[in-house]
């Protein structure tokens, strides 16, 4: 028997903590606050929760949070690997748990002191002899050891094949800052920049300037998922998960898949998109807005192609035509994204996507929003989800 999970589960509560550069509190506290507030946003009690899921990267045990928040018995808990590639993987886990009856109310969470604690920009190096350490060992002696450097390698190749890439990178960085300028929760609230600032911003790894890179944040985000049936009786209109997919395409390395015939591509997301569209019965034309993982500006371009909004090499022109703007074809990263709101490994993006379906985004597009795409980080095994109004 095959179960189609489409429409079986719904997001009913979401929350972010305050986003800062120095939270002054533990990651356990950030996670507990986000989880507590997401449960409250759903109009549920902690004791209603019986499932939890997070990133393998998260430092805080589910049971520690459960105890802190007053969550009772857990019958489902799981973790998703591959850094930011896990973001919508949490939704994937929760939907499967709820659709199969393994749990009724699942909280997805991620919290990190990403700026005052361990910083991802500091790169990878360490004494542990794991398969992961051996993998990085093919790159660190040459100096290739930061997330920016790995994604820049794909980007240089993409710039070789496509036109107007740098202009489109600016458009993405600038547009998202414009959204953040109007978002009081965003780190860059009321702090705009212009093309001259972008051009003058510090080179990180060519071709990336500082303004092409996401920030590092202290904060947490959480999302509550339950059955579509139970969602009907809760506080907010249900935001159902119409489709969700994840994939690790063939010949994958974590961030360094440099050995495929063409590296200016993200085949894992192509597969995840196909799965999510098939489950949901939706097509790209049905998607009204998007939250697309944006650790670096060009990865937004490639994902637009994966999800069928444009061709891979035409993505810069699609963006330069204003498609991602408030009045465009696909308003995208309306919270400011991880470039300008906060970097919570994409889970703040799931919060924003939920708000877009609810109609409560701080930059809500002036049109009917029925279906919203939200994606995970790329370069690693990844995924995405299609959220929508309950039919």
């Amino acid at each position: 028997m095959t179960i189609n999970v489409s429409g079986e589960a719904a997001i009913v509560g979401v929350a972010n903590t305050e986003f800062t550069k120095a939270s002054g509190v533990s990651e356990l506290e950030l996670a507990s606050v986000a989880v507590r507030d997401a449960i409250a946003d759903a109009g549920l009690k902690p004791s209603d929760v019986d499932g939890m899921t997070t990133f393998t990267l998260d430092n805080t045990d589910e049971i520690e949070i459960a105890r802190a928040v007053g969550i009772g018995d857990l019958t489902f808990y799981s973790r998703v690997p591959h850094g930011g590639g896990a973001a919508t993987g949490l939704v994937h886990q929760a939907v499967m748990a709820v659709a199969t009856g393994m749990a009724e109310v699942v909280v997805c969470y991620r919290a990190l002191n990403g700026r005052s604690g361990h910083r991802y920009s500091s790169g990878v190096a360490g004494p542990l002899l794991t398969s992961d350490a051996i993998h990085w060992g093919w790159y660190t002696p040459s100096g290739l050891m930061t997330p920016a450097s790995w994604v820049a390698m794909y980007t240089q190749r993409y710039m070789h094949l496509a036109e107007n890439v740098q202009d489109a990178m600016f458009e993405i960085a600038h547009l998202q800052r414009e959204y953040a300028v109007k978002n009081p929760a965003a780190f860059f609230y009321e702090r705009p920049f212009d093309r001259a600032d972008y051009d003058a911003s510090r080179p990180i790894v060519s071709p990336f300037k500082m303004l092409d890179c996401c920030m590092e944040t202290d904060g947490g985000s959480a999302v509550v998922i339950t059955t579509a049936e139970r969602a009907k009786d809760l506080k907010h209109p249900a935001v159902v998960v119409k489709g969700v997919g994840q994939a690790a395409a063939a010949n994958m390395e974590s961030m360094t898949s440099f050995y495929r015939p063409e590296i200016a591509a993200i085949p894992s997301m192509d597969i995840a998109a196909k799965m999510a569209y098939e489950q949901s019965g939706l097509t790209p034309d049905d998607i009204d807005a998007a939250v697309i993982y944006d650790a670096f500006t060009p990865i937004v371009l490639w994902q637009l192609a994966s999800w069928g909004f444009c061709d891979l090499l035409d993505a810069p022109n699609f963006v330069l035509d204003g498609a991602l703007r408030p009045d465009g074809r696909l308003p995208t990263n309306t919270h400011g994204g991880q470039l300008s709101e906060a970097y919570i490994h994409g889970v703040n993006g799931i919060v924003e996507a939920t708000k877009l379906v609810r109609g409560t985004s701080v930059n809500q597009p002036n049109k009917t929003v029925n279906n919203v795409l939200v994606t995970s980080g790329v370069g690693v095994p990844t995924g995405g989800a299609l959220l929508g109004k309950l039919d």
Partner: protein
Amino acid sequence: MTPEETKAFEDELYNFVGNSVHGGPRKGHDDVNAAMIRQWCEIMGDANPAYIDAEWAAKSTRGHTIAPPAMMYAWTQEGYKVASVGRPESDGQARLVRFLASKGFTGSLGTNVDQEYFADAKIGDSIFEDSIIESISEQKTTGRGVGYFFETFAKFTNQDGTLLGTQRFRVFQFIPPAQAEAEAPADSGLEVPTRIQAPRGQDNKWWWDACDEGKVLIQRCKSCQVLRHPPRPMCGECQSTEWDSIESTLDGEVFSFVEMHHPRVPGYQYPLIVAVIELAEGTRIVANVVGCDVADVHIGMKIKGQVDQVDEKTMLPQFYPIAS
């Protein structure tokens, strides 16, 4: 500080931007003279005859010695009395530093100096400096602590008003970390940093050991002869665990590349180019491209590799351009 207190503090702080440091141009205590030039060159280890050899300089295009341009701001320094009596009450920079210190930002670290030179200074010239507080950053968290960067901008002119040069001086004023941390034993500082080594395990040690011997090997499936890199214990084509290897000729072509700017890691040499390289044998390898201008590196560039000792501990393939 509460967010409100921080805002009030920053409002006051940013009012310093544009302030003059000395209330207008100030003249150096001594005019440009041979004795100070000689002492400066001695300390800096600079034996350039254009600065210190009057006989040589008389025959040079200038016809006389000049002051080392980098010495520009030595002429207008306050001198040792700063250490004993401090800067004058009216000094704009001192006022800014005092204001920051009053809020706990007592640590001070000069981070960088940029100078530009436009004209020579020669013996007998008077040097004038006119400085302002040019900018103050938003609050930053660095390895030293939380604080603010500020930049002064100085113009140096001579007695005729000719612009000799300009200088930007950047200072990080920060809240120093707790005493305990400050008292942690310092590194001996004697060891020269090397590149981060690849950890060696059962599946890759043979490759790095060969690299140490100056050879770049490519793993080959014994069963179906397919080459693979990076090495792994099983052939993805035929699932055989039997393998041997061939030695690469290191003829290759740049498939993609990046230039690493930030963060700079001790043990690495910059500018630093890292490339995905397509080898003539058909496999790819990630390695440095060296021996050419950064601007000349491009996708499709023909290169040839060799294993170089890049530091005390590290043997690595390095690829050089092929003269076309």
